[in-house]
Structure formats: structure tokens, C-alpha cells
């Protein structure tokens, strides 16, 4: 049973086909016909993505994934602001950001490249707009708040925040990596200045993603070289991956109504089935409109996380038992700490090809597991 789509989703058929079709592409910067063919594939992909996300094509910058897109936005925008104003820009990020934002922000602050404020969240993991606005200073160059949280699935009020920031002339970057599979995001309508997306969260292969960087935004490039992607991101176009991410995105957008209805029903069933068990609580927003329909985040009282990982593998369930640090140990997640959530965390996340069977099997397996392990709660004290 694969219930870890939030970590990496299954590849969409159209994405697989696009990838294989363009695997032998020539260099998209080459002048010859095959090069031009490859370039056409890249630009077609750019147009598709731009259209789906409410941007113009040249605002799309292809990257290796979400982490690179976040790095590009934070470093690129903050450094550009510093160069322009000759002062140290102020950066605000939320406490629940993915490490690809959080660690970049801390790194920039430690180098003295920015002054940093971190805005907290409520117990539901949602960032409060007023709390962000209260931290603004005349030097604030960028605010980075994720569209939806990767662990709890909490959806932040990005449109509201972006609008408030736009009227104050402050750029908003949003890490939308978790949101793309199930939410419609429109950077133009929502006045988002910069956005990061990762292909493998919505059916593309791993290793490709994109940043949206609005045209009025000055960005210092991180990768210098051949000047591809309007000089912001040099490097030979990854034609097959780019074709693949556009195909996955297009299929995601077209299939979204079905997927949302389907996995909302599945996660409702999953949450109801599991929360009926002793010592299982659901975390995150209680209002379904404020959480991703793909995520069910639980706290388990009866199972230590180390044992949980073993048991899940034993049951053939792939799910996330918590944030894994680089050694592979599950550690207390900064998101759960910020939201004040206790207990052994378990994130179950569904995707476009999740099935009723997977959900029912998972509920049955957990029912048996928790009943047989009721006495292990003090194992690790």
C-alpha cells in the first residue's frame, strides 16, 4: 500500500510517455534542426505550465526540483534586493517552512545577507496574515510562506497574504511543492511574486521542477553558464524531464476534479477508520477547506515511532513516520514543534492512483496492529 504521495507520487502515464519520447533529444540550445526540435519541446512545456499557473512563459524557470527553486527564489531575490538598495534586506519566513526554505533563510541570516524574522503558526499549522504583517519593516524585501504544509497539509491564506503584501510593495515567495497535486494555483490572480514547484509530487519523475519568477522581480542567478532560462538558470535544458513535468502538470490539471473528489472520499474514510482506534488523533486544520485533501496527519499514542517504521514495513505500508534527518533517523519535526503537536507522528498521503482497497487494507492493518501493540507505549521511556 503506497500512502506516501506527499513524499513522492507515482509517475503519470503521460509524463512517462513524454519522458521516453524525448530521451534522445539534442541540445535545445543548438542551432541545427534537431536542436531546434528539442528547444520547441522545452518552450511548448514552458507555455503549458505558464498557462496552467497563470504566469507568462518567460516567468517559468526550469529547475532540478523544489529545493533548487526555493534556493533560487530566496537567495536570488534577497541578493538582488541587497544589490539594489545597498542595505541588508529583511526576510520573513514561516516556522513551518520546508528545510529548502528554512535552512536557506537561516544560512542567509548567518552570513549577514539578510535580517531574518520567523513567523509562527497556529495549532493547526496555519500562518496568520496579521502576524506576518506585524513583522514588516521598511527593509522587508521578501516574505516566504508555503502554500500548503508538507506534514500537516495545512493550507495557508496565500492569496490574502499576497494581496496585503502587494499593496505594501513586498514580494511574496511561496513554496507550493505540496499544493500542486490538488489545488489550483494562479500566480497572477493571487498576486504571487515567486513560487517553487517540484515535479515528482504531481506525477513527473524526480529531478525536475520549476520556479515562477514574476517579470518585475529582480533575481540574482545561482547557476552561471550558458545563459539558459533568461540567464537566471544556466545549464543544458533537460528536455525529457521538462517535457515530462509539463505533461504531468497538464494531466494533473485536467484530472484534478476527479482526483480531488476521489481522494477526499478516501482520506475521509481513512481518517474516520483510524481515528476510531484508541490513542489515534488527527492533526491539522479541522476545516476541510483549510487542509489538503490528500493528507491525513495523525498522532499515535501507543506506538513509538521507531517501532512504527518497523511495523509499517512489516505490513507493507509505505507512509511517513516523521521528518527524516540526513542519517535516516526520525526526529522531532520543527513543524510539529511549532504547532505544539505531540505523540508519534504518522502522515498518510494519497495521490492520483490511490485506491479504495489501499485505504481499507490500511485501516484493517492498523486496527490489528494497534490492538496487538497496546502495551508498548512505555517501550522507549
Amino acid at each position, binding site marked *: 500500500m503506497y500512502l506516501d504521495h506527499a513524499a513522492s507520487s507515482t509517475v503519470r502515464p503521460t509524463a512517462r510517455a513524454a519522458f521516453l519520447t524525448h530521451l534522445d533529444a539534442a541540445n535545445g540550445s543548438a542551432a541545427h534542426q534537431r536542436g531546434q526540435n528539442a528547444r520547441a519541446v522545452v518552450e511548448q512545456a514552458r507555455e503549458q505550465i505558464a498557462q496552467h499557473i497563470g504566469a507568462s512563459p518567460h516567468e517559468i524557470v526550469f529547475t532540478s526540483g523544489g529545493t533548487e527553486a526555493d534556493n533560487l527564489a530566496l537567495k536570488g531575490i534577497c541578493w538582488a534586493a541587497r544589490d539594489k538598495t545597498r542595505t541588508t534586506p529583511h526576510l520573513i519566513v514561516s516556522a513551518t517552512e520546508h528545510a529548502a526554505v*528554512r535552512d536557506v533563510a537561516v*544560512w542567509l541570516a548567518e552570513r549577514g545577507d539578510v535580517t531574518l524574522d520567523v513567523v509562527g503558526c497556529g495549532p493547526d499549522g496555519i500562518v496568520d496574515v496579521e502576524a506576518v504583517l506585524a513583522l514588516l519593516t521598511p527593509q522587508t524585501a521578501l516574505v516566504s510562506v508555503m502554500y500548503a504544509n508538507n506534514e500537516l497539509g495545512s493550507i495557508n491564506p496565500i492569496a490574502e497574504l499576497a494581496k496585503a503584501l502587494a499593496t505594501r510593495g513586498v514580494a511574496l515567495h511561496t513554496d507550493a511543492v505540496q499544493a500542486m497535486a490538488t489545488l489550483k494555483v494562479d500566480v497572477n490572480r493571487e498576486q504571487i511574486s515567486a513560487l517553487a514547484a517540484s515535479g515528482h509530487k504531481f506525477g513527473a519523475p524526480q529531478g525536475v521542477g520549476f520556479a515562477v519568477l514574476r517579470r518585475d522581480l529582480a533575481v540574482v542567478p545561482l547557476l552561471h553558464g550558458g545563459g539558459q532560462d533568461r540567464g537566471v538558470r544556466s545549464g543544458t535544458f533537460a528536455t525529457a524531464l521538462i517535457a515530462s513535468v509539463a505533461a504531468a502538470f497538464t494531466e494533473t490539471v485536467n484530472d484534478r476534479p476527479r482526483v480531488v473528489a476521489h481522494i477526499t472520499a478516501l482520506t475521509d474514510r481513512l481518517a474516520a477508520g483510524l481515528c476510531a482506534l484508541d490513542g489515534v488523533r488527527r492533526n491539522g486544520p479541522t476545516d476541510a477547506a483549510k487542509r489538503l485533501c490528500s493528507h491525513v496527519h495523525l498522532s499515535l499514542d501507543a506506538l513509538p515511532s*521507531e517501532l512504527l517504521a*518497523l511495523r509499517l514495513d512489516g505490513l507493507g505500508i509505505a507512509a511517513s513516520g516523521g521528518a527524516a534527518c*540526513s*542519517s*535516516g533517523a526520525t526526529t522531532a519535526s520543527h513543524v510539529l514543534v511549532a504547532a505544539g503537536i505531540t505523540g508519534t507522528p504518522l502522515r498518510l498521503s494519497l495521490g492520483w492512483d490511490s485506491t479504495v482497497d489501499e485505504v481499507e487494507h490500511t485501516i484493517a492493518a492498523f486496527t490489528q496492529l494497534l490492538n496487538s501493540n497496546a502495551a508498548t507505549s512505555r517501550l*522507549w521511556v
Partner: protein
Amino acid sequence: MSKVLIALSGGVDSSAAAALLVADGHDVTAVHLKLADTDTDAPPGHGCCTLDDAQDARRTAAMLDIPFYVWDLRDTFQTAVERPFAASYATGVTPNPCVTCNEKVKYAALLERAKTAGFDALATGHYAQLRRDGKPVVTPGPNVTLHRAKDAQKDQSYVLYMAQPEQLAHTLLPVGGYTKPQVRQIAADAGFRVAQKPDSYDICFIPDGDTAGYLAKRLPVAAGTIIDNDGTVLGEHDGVWRYTVGQRRGLGLDHHERRFVTDVNATTNTVTVGPRDALACAWVRIKTPRFTTSAPIQEHLLVQIRAHGRAHQATVVRDTNGLKITFLEPVYGVALGQAAVLYDRDNDLCYGGGMITDADRDAVFGLRNA
């Protein structure tokens, strides 16, 4: 075939142990324990990983095609091993953190967790041998005795003395029957890149070996006097925890004879030094001994009082105050807090032992009660 959990540190010993278990046909699962924070170079927010070791362990498991998990026991390790380690020094006692760790984290406690998780046995890379009816143990089960390792230089039975018979029945120590060079060869034959990895340090959470420096960051400065065993004040110290019984170096004393630390008294904040003779100890006491076997213990046996010391001939009497061990010849450098571990006369079978809670040094020079 048994379901075996191997504690895989990322070093050569546990890697070879895992390979031997797989070769024996066991259903093996590996767990890497995160115990101490020693990664000072890690970027902010990532202080959690001795990454190389974890990677090595993961690589070993992948090569053996066995499941691999990382268990973060840093909090447990902090509470059960590191803090008591410093606290013991503060009370003038010299602890053995490896013994504590084996009891509270790495061996005895982990074994209980392994059993709860459904494993038949816990295996480790400790150098010690288990025998049943005189033969090496390759499958878990009762009636197991604990013995010195084949490689006397590497023997770790001393730090496993707390293993109870019931625990030994669920323990496998695959490398105990091999010498260190043989173990390296086993690892090399299995293709492990850790085959030539250097041996680890004695105290894993003090990788630079500077115990005094480690303690200095955690314990307060408390100046006191250093006196000679005749009562003469010889100098000052800035914390009794800097000293351990038997210590000769770093005393900074101007004395015409060689001086050794003979007593560390945290109550009076006094360090006593004296000639080597003053270290002579006729007996030690263990308040709460633990035994690896229910079999009777020889009256005349061998006792080891330091992790890397030789065993001394002694007689043992059990009374209401625990165990009194009387040495046939005086023993030098007995430190409270260290473990006294009992071996049979052949210096092979480990009976058990316990933390030294009292020692006779006072009787020799009669100072503390004077």
C-alpha cells in the same frame, strides 16, 4: 533460523557480525542507533547525525540486503549515560559509561525493545563469546554462559557483565569467536568498505579523548585543596572531577616523590595524593551484584577492576551488604564507580559483577576516618 536484530554501528565489528548472521541463515534486520551528538561541523539544525557512521551502516545493510532502520536514542543516551557520567565525576566517582550504555541503551535495554518488536534475539559486535554446553551459540535459547573473547586484546565481556541469564538466551555475539584481524578479513571478504576503518574510541561521546575538557564544559569550577596522605596541603585544584584514583599525570605538584591520586572526596572537595603504596587495596565491595549465570560461583576466582586491566586473584563472599571481594595480593588504582567483574579461575567464564561501591583504600592509610 531466528529473527535477529543487529545493532549496526557502522564500524567493522558489527558489520562483520551482520555478515556472519546472514551467512548463518538468520532473518536479520539492522538498526543503527543515534546516541551522541558529535557532529560539531554540521550546519545549523542538523546537529543530529554522525553521518558517516550512519551511511556506512546503511551501506553495509544494503550490501547484505537486509532491512535497515535508524533509531534516534539521543535523548535516552543523554539522560541515561552522558548526564550520569558527568554527575558521577562530580561526586568523586569514576564511571564506566560503556557499562552504563550497555545496560541502559545499547544492549540490555535494546534487547528488551527487540523482543517487544518481535525479534528472537539481539546481536551486537561485542567481542565476547556465548556458549551452550561448551559449544559456541549460533541460535538463541536458554542455558547460555558468557565468556572472554577469543581475541584477548579486544575482549569486551567486562562491559557486558550485567547481562542476565534470561537476556543471554536472546543474545548473539557473532564476532566473539574471531580475532580482530579475522573480523577485518570477514568484512573485507563481504566487500564492506569499513573493513579497514580504525577502531572506535573508548568513550564515543568524547571523540577527542579529552575527558577533562568535556567535563569542564558541564561541571562547575569548585576550588579545593590537594593534600598529601599525611595531611600536608600540597596545592589547589579547581574541581574534584578533574581527578581519578590512580592518576599520576597532570597533578602539577612539586613533590620530591612520585605522587598518585589516592582518593577523591567530593564531600570535602579534597583530592588526596600519596605514594603508589597508598593505592594498595585489599578488598572492594559491590552493593548490587549482577550474575550472568545461576550456576554456583567459585570461591577463589579472578576479578577485573578496569576495562583494560588484568584480572586479579581474589576470594568472594556474599552477605547482606552485597558482595565482598578480597584480593590475594593488594591491587592498585581501584576507583569507585568502576565495575568489578568476576571470572572463573581459567579467566574465561564471566560470572557477572557490579559497580564498586566501597573499597579498602582507607584501611591502608587510614585517612578518611582519621
